[in-house]
């Protein structure tokens, strides 16, 4: 591995002759370090933690509704647990994956684009909540309003936002994972108001574990 000197003398740096092999090694090493530092998902462990939290959220909601006949929707204690899990996930994400660190000090086109997309995706999220309210107002059954819709549509909006941000950063792996999760979520709607929670949970978990496996494999290379 090429070790650059730490002197403050620039002339010495110019005289520090690089062989073509050293230059190639330095390019590869610097490029790898930069990609790691600029990337959002720096650690496959963060992806695995995300997979576990995803499964825990959907698993808790499924446990809270699986005995319901007729279907009424997730119970208060289940919602309390999932909101706690979301807070833990946000803290874990900041600590392990370092999203702030990845974009720290970066400005320009990508950041502007992310701000515009954030505004568009934020309005899409609010609109989907309004639509859910409209469904209830129009008399749709609890199986739709508190079952299939929140299990499928809410996460689709959030995962699509994640996919769009990944696309902006040309993070192709995360983009494909987002597309796969969206496909799983959409397909899970056919499982009905109770099965949808289990199907979304297990399907999303499998996709995220697969993404972590690809990230682990890339790290070893």
């Amino acid at each position, binding site marked *: 591995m*090429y070790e*650059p*000197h*730490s*002197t*403050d*003398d*620039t002339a010495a*740096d*110019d005289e*520090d*002759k*690089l*062989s*073509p*092999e050293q*230059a*190639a*090694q*330095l*390019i*590869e090493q*610097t*490029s790898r*370090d*930069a*990609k790691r*530092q*600029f*990337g959002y998902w720096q650690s496959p462990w963060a992806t695995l933690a995300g997979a576990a939290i995803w499964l825990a959220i959907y698993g808790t909601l499924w446990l809270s509704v699986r005995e319901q006949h007729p279907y009424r929707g997730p119970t208060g204690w289940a919602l309390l647990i999932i909101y706690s899990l979301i807070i833990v996930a946000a803290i874990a994400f900041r600590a392990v994956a370092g999203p702030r660190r990845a974009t*720290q*000090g*970066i*400005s*320009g*086109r*990508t*950041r502007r684009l992310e701000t515009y997309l954030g505004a568009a995706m934020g309005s899409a999220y609010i609109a989907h909540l309004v639509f859910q309210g409209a469904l209830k107002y129009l008399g749709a059954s609890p199986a739709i309003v508190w079952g299939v819709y929140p299990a499928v549509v809410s996460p689709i909006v959030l995962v699509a936002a994640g996919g769009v941000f990944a696309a902006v*950063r*040309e*993070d*192709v*792996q995360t983009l494909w994972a987002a597309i796969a999760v969206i496909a799983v979520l959409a397909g899970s709607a056919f499982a009905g108001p109770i099965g949808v929670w289990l199907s979304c949970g297990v399907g999303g978990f499998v996709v995220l574990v697969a993404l972590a496996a690809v990230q682990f494999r890339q790290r070893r290379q």
Partner: protein
Amino acid sequence: MTADALDPVIHAPARLRIVVTLANLPDGDELSFPRLQEMLALTPGNLITHLRKLEEAGYVTTVKTGHGIWSRTTIALTNRGRAALEEYTAALRGLLGPAMDGSVRVGQPGE
């Protein structure tokens, strides 16, 4: 072809690392001076001197905004700098032969 054929502006360890780091940002993005300094573990004086050389060659642009404690300097690779790095890596591949083809490559995030 010999090592003399390599662009002397880029063919210095610190400047090569600066250019490669900036090349890993998406087109149109800039990096702040403190972040670049931290990533490369260079002293401010050393980084400034190398940036000046790269700027003179038209490979990077530095933009200073604000005043006093609010001042902020950002650095970006120009199209000319990106092209120079591509030429440099192509020349390296020529020197090292086809066996090293895969290892000398600089790309943007996600590539």
